[in-house]
């Protein structure tokens, strides 16, 4: 019902490609622009979601389930990455009392 009409109703796969690219580029811009390490991790999540959106779009476009399962695995990896990244960040905060990435440029004090 919905699917049969979505890609025939003027919404093309190119639209989703541009939307996903825009989201990805916003994530890249955030990583380059912001200084707060937590916001940086959030921008990485944003980039992962842009890729997920494109994978689901192509999965629907070709009628194959593989793309959606890739999204599933990306979510698994993102959850693990967020957990470990945030716990490392909490440890860094204990040492420096800040989450500014410019203070993290030394591996050894």
């Amino acid at each position, binding site marked *: 019902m*919905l*699917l*049969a*009409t*979505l*890609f025939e*109703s*003027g919404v093309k796969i190119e639209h989703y490609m*541009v*939307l996903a*690219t*825009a989201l990805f*580029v*916003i994530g*890249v*811009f955030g990583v*380059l*622009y*912001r200084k*707060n390490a*937590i*916001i940086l*991790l*959030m*921008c990485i*999540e*944003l980039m992962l*979601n842009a890729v*997920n*959106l494109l994978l*689901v*779009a192509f*999965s*629907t*476009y*070709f*009628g*194959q*389930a*593989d793309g*959606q399962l890739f999204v*599933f*695995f990306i*979510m*698994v990896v*993102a*959850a*693990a990455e*967020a*957990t*470990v990244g*945030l716990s490392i*960040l*909490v*440890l860094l*905060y204990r*040492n420096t009392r800040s*989450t*500014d990435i410019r203070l993290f440029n030394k591996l050894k*004090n």
Partner: protein
Amino acid sequence: MSLDLIFYILGGLTIGTALMVVLSKHPVRSVLYLVLTFFLISANYVMMNAQFIAIVNIIVYAGAIMVLFLFVLMLLNLNKENEPKHSLWMTVGAMIAGGGLFLVLVAAMRDAILAAPMIDENSEKVGLVENLGQVLFTKYVLPFEVSSILFLAAMVGAVLLAKREKQTIE
């Protein structure tokens, strides 16, 4: 309301909230905008008939990961922290890098030759739990098991990192 109008509204709102994640000064506000972005992306998944992924996206991302971010923000007590001034060079450089990447990617995609969409009577059921589960537990059963090992490693790592050390630095 036609479908492409819904697509344009959803896409515009998604890009707007994603920009607010990057541009808002307050970290908590950033997290809340990111939750909104994830809900809008889930709406996009529903548009594409991927119901299972839409629900999992809300549960895992908006529910679990973002609550984790919010907890860490509250624990670190960064609310009163005022963001340092961004240097003009960094801002301009980031804008040029982002805009250049966007142009290059879109230009590369314009030349891509795409096959026609494959829509038959089965393609409506692709995103449902039944079909996805069947593919997951037959074709992708090894990656599924390996991801459980990844979770175990992440769990051990998080516990190990969060444990307070006996002798603290300095």
